């Protein structure tokens, strides 16, 4: 059954029509990768789903009930968490405070501070450091851990490998297995196609605010993907 249904949604940044009728469905426990060039609307899509950006048309439903244009802080309580682009760690909070704050709404579930530290053992010795002093990889771990602390049913991850050393990316993607094993559904925005394909059951290409291609990664052809990614053939 579909955890998330998105039906023909539109969104604007000021005058810029960023999403022009995107529809998709994600089944429970699935990992869906959303790929596309910069400016294609991937981050916008995630922000529209989690309530950080108002939807100007269409419908978003979680577990069958419609949720569009509810504020982000209410959707967090319903079980949607976003790992935002650029990580957005709170610089004046310590690592531990950042993580604890993720559980502000007190949703119960598998994830506790203890389990997040088990998932990312690197963070333990950094727990009292300010968010400002972390490396990019550590920040990304905090951002993911912070989202997990709300025990989300649906977790949206925006560009989690961006700007990180390959070895750190490797480590973060390994954690993905543990995350889905706990039953969370994942929507993943990723520029790195090959990386996305290793974890995703489904993939969805966005081009200039519309879905240009979708399917199971292994079934898609190279040329088809190039066109879906760049638009007119290169």
């Amino acid at each position, binding site marked *: 059954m579909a955890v998330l249904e998105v039906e023909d949604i539109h969104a604007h940044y000021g005058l810029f029509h960023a999403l022009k009728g995107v529809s998709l469905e994600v089944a429970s426990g699935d990992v869906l990768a959303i790929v596309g*060039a*910069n400016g294609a609307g991937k981050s916008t899509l995630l922000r529209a789903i989690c309530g950080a950006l108002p939807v100007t048309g269409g419908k978003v439903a979680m577990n069958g009930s419609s949720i569009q244009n509810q504020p982000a802080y209410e959707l967090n309580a319903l079980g949607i968490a976003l790992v935002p682009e650029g990580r957005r760690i709170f610089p004046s909070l310590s690592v531990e405070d950042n993580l604890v704050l993720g559980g502000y709404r007190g949703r119960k579930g598998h994830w506790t501070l203890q389990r997040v530290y088990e998932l990312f053992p690197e963070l333990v010795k950094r727990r009292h450091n300010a968010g400002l002093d972390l490396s990019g990889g550590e920040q990304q771990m905090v951002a993911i851990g912070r989202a997990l602390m709300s025990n989300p049913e649906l977790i949206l991850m925006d560009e989690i490998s961006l700007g990180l050393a390959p070895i750190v990316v490797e480590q973060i993607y390994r954690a993905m297995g543990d995350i889905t094993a706990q039953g969370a559904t994942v929507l993943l925005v990723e520029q790195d196609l090959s990386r996305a394909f290793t974890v995703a059951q489904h993939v969805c290409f966005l081009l200039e605010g519309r879905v240009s291609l979708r399917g199971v990664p292994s079934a898609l052809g190279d040329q088809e993907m190039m066109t879906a990614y*760049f*638009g007119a053939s*290169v």
Partner: protein
Amino acid sequence: MKLVAGTVSLSAGSIHFDGRKIDALRSEDRCGIGISRTSQVPQPFVGMTVWENVLTAACHGGHHDLAAAEEVAYSCLQRTGLLDRHGQLADALPLMGRKRLELARALACAPKLLLLDEIAGGLSDFEVKDLVALVRDINESGVAVVWIEHIVHALLSVVSRVVAMDLGNLIADGTPDEVINGPAFKQAYFGDKIATVGMA
């Protein structure tokens, strides 16, 4: 890019323009010596008309008195195809109009070097084609152009030299053909986001 225009200051190294060291100049002064920039998110003066926007740039960036600035502003509007909209408030322009306005304003500053930051982002194919023709025209009139863009097909038709960047490092430099077919580019493009492309 923002380093060159002076909105972000650099932490090491130096920037030279026309043989002059310009690291310490402020944004407004860099404009004065011939570097203009269009920003990724257009920043029109929303309470002014299109005409006033460009006129302001011609006065201050181009160092003209009002009468001369009017001539300059007129030709910039004409070149960017905004003449019909001269009396409209900039706030009322659609995205393509705003991008054109950014371009017109930058041109009115009489630049020797024009920096275009993702100017094609968010435009339709048709609009991009229009814009490409415009940029080519500007380049042919003797203005050096540095164009950062993710919409690669928009670029390839205009540029003479491509510099691809991956997270602050230069990964390829050459003619469009060389770069696009090189292994570094393909790998980087599917591994990452930023490609800077320029022409000289």
